[in-house]
């Protein structure tokens, strides 16, 4: 089982906070990996917010291949950060030779283009890079998007933190939104891509649970969008549905809940908006999820949210102070990083709501 966590703050925070958030929950995961996605970046990335950053783990050959492809496509590198590592003996980490965080300027003919066109370009580029590096495992391309970096590695999360010196807070590598998870996909083969959080065009999702409609989801999603690939984990389906509902269909976030866990017909029938909700349930029946799970998601505007399955078979809690909101599978993690908060204001979301936190940290609870 996974444990998932997310931090959203008014200030830039360092990933050490995410490690601490997950540390006390380790009995609930198996310390098999660490993965995080950071949105709304500070530190060395702060002045490049409008330009895409490539997050990739690769071999030397993979790096060369990727750089050549990006160069050929017209991308110009404006910034590169190679994290300093501390490869102590005895660390439990299956490290790749290179961790690449490179920020690029768009190709010339895109620079004055529409945002939508740029977003499609970035996705196409990432898919091409992934494909080129995937065949002989020369690298793993996690994200290529403005103001977003991704780090995923196999091993003990504490050792991964040590390796990347993430336990030592600084103001160079920070973000206002960090989502994290400490388990590889132990149900199946260990594949770097299978670790959540997952990312697509500004959307991030991570989940604790099972998706018993995985096959239905996969069969439907494969035909919905070129970016819906991989499916190394059943939780990727949550991300793709989020992307489809919010970006492709342009429906407000609250309808995401109606798609993944639709109301029972008997309740639908009593609603004023039953016509819309029924049509949604019909048309997106294949995107329903039908198992125990909790989802945490991030939208391109950095809204952070969480919701659960319809029978609340997976826990989640939201704790907050004036400056920080933390969502976590277990309250012990929140106690560690927000020890002085008023725990009476903690929210334990129920099975029929979405809890969303906007950029002013206002918490909204949308009842389904």
């Amino acid at each position: 089982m996974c444990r998932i966590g997310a931090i959203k703050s008014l200030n830039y925070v360092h990933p050490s906070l995410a490690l601490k958030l997950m540390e006390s929950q380790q009995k609930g995961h198996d310390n098999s990996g660490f993965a995080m996605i950071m949105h709304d970046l500070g530190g060395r990335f702060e002045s490049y917010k409008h330009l895409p950053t490539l997050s990739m783990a690769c071999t030397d050959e993979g790096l060369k291949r990727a750089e050549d492809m990006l160069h050929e496509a017209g991308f110009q590198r404006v910034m590169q950060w190679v994290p300093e590592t501390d490869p102590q003996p005895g660390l439990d980490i299956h490290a790749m030779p290179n961790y690449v965080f490179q920020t690029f300027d768009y190709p010339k003919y895109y620079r004055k283009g529409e945002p939508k066109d740029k977003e499609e370009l970035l996705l196409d580029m990432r898919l091409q890079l992934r494909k080129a590096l995937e065949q002989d495992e020369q690298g793993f391309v996690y994200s290529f998007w403005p103001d977003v970096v991704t780090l995923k590695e196999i091993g003990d999360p504490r050792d991964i933190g040590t390796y990347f010196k993430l336990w030592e807070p600084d103001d160079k590598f920070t973000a206002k939104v960090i989502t994290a998870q400490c388990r590889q996909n132990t149900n199946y083969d260990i594949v770097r891509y299978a670790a959540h959080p997952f990312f697509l065009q500004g959307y991030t999702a991570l989940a604790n649970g099972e998706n018993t409609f995985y096959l239905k989801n996969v069969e439907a999603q494969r035909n919905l969008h070129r970016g819906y690939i991989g499916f190394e984990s059943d939780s990727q389906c949550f991300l793709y549905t989020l992307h489809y509902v919010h970006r492709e269909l342009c429906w407000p976030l609250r309808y995401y809940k109606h798609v993944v866990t639709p109301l029972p017909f008997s309740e639908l029938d009593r609603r004023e908006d039953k016509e819309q909700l029924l049509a949604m349930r019909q048309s997106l029946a294949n995107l329903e999820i039908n198992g125990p799970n909790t989802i945490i998601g991030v939208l391109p505007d950095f809204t952070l949210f969480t919701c659960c399955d319809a029978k609340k078979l997976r826990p989640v809690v939201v704790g907050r102070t004036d400056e920080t909101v933390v969502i976590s599978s277990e309250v012990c993690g929140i106690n560690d990083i927000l020890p002085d908060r008023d725990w009476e204001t903690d929210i334990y979301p129920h099975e029929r709501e979405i809890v969303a936190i906007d950029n002013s940290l206002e918490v909204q609870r949308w009842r389904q």
Partner: protein
Amino acid sequence: METMKVQNVTPNDMPWKVKYDASRCTLCGSCVSACSFRAIECKVERRRMVFSEGDLPEPKQRFSAVPVIRQVKDVRHYCRGCGICEKVCPNDAIAPQRNPDTRHPILSRCLGGDSIKRGGRKNLEASIRTLDKLRVGRISQMTDPSLDAQRHTFDMLAPFGRILPAKALPFSLDSQNLLQVEATMPPVRWIYPVIIGDMSIGALSWRMWEAVAMAVAYLNEECGMPVRMCSGEGGVPVRLLKSRYLKYMILQIASGHFGWNRIVKAMPHMVEDPAGILIKIGQGAKPGDGGLLQANKVADHIQEIRGVPKADLLSPPNHQGLYSIEESVQKMFLSFNAAFKFRVPVAIKVAASATSVSVFNNLVRDPYNIVGGFFLDGIDGGTGAAHEVSLDHTGHPIVSKLRDCYLAAVNQGRQGQIPLWAAGGLGKTGDLAADAFKMIALGASGVFTGKLVLQMAGCVGNDLGRCNACNTGLCPVGITTQEPALVHRLDVDRVAQNIVNYFLAMDTEFKKLMAPIGNSSLPVGRSDALISTDKAVADQLDIQYVC
């Protein structure tokens, strides 16, 4: 001694021999009067009796005329093995016995010069059913807990109607950032995933049809189960058309258009829309063959409902005037949608065939979004009357064909847009919940069933040649006959009660299958929940092979 003529018909030529024990018979005559086929008769036999009256044995003989029951030696009145004689005999003196040496298939053709007709299902069953080679093998354990069939709630509903792709939904955002519907969408009804399949009011006796209709109304109004019943081709009593119970009926139109004159005339008086319209193109039990209601079943009320004289009623094998799938969409679907002002879903029923996927693909691509369901009927389906050669030798099994259609939709990203409904021998072993569940996991939105409903009512026929006389109008249990004396054998209330109880039991069993796989709504297309120990079946259906 008479000269022996080998061509004479004897009981030994018949599919069933009547075993009669004169020593147990009280000559009450119940069996003879109960046999609707006139396959037994009273006869007087000359019997020799040897007796002795004195103290010492002094054998004498006496000849006397003794009344007995005998099997009729006539190919038109042969015993069907229905066993009604046995049922009514107070002394267990008589019973039919299957005759493995029967010459009936040859004799009947030789003497009649006509094809053999019968009702029932395909009788050439050689192997284990495909559905029985499948198991629900993906059981939730540990991290993905099973649900509790008693405690949790389940959404046991299936769609009937055309479902738009999400991008085609006519939604707009209002000032409060809420979605509003801007235009009319195709009608979709969410109904119980088992439809009582199309058996016409001519094929069934009026009491049987009424019992099914009563059961359906009861299931809806008292049990909260939105079960729908399809009328079959043959119309609906006008009183029902004008009643509020019409909403539980799917009206069928087939190539004979029987009953539609009355339906159209009743339209201005309808207080409810029907549940749907089903255009019947073909039927699994006799694909490529039309409907057949023999004159002896065309009773007064049927003449009234259909507006026909007492004559053989034959529906042509094809719809006159339809020469292509596109044409059917434009003509029939459009006109029926328009007739009910686009408020009633219109679906199509075809016999499963090697070409089913092509037909389905054409409908799935229907640009008008008016095809509201694809009903696929397999070879094991039942029928009231068909030529035996069609029944036994034509058709296509339903399981792989349904799966093929579903996967064709998946490949195009159109699964669920036209709900697939499957039938053809489902519930044959008496367990419809298991069969339906497996079909749903393979991609059906729901199933429809007919023959099983007859069996709930007391049909004694089976797939080993027992009875199968639906076509004769002499149904011994009053289900497929219009003979008043036979029809009155059927207890309407008990039939309705049996159907209701079966559906309640089946509903519980559905939940007992949904709970272990952790699903609270129907697992349409969840083939990952199924396993098979038969490699060929697993490969063909694209499910997991296990051993």
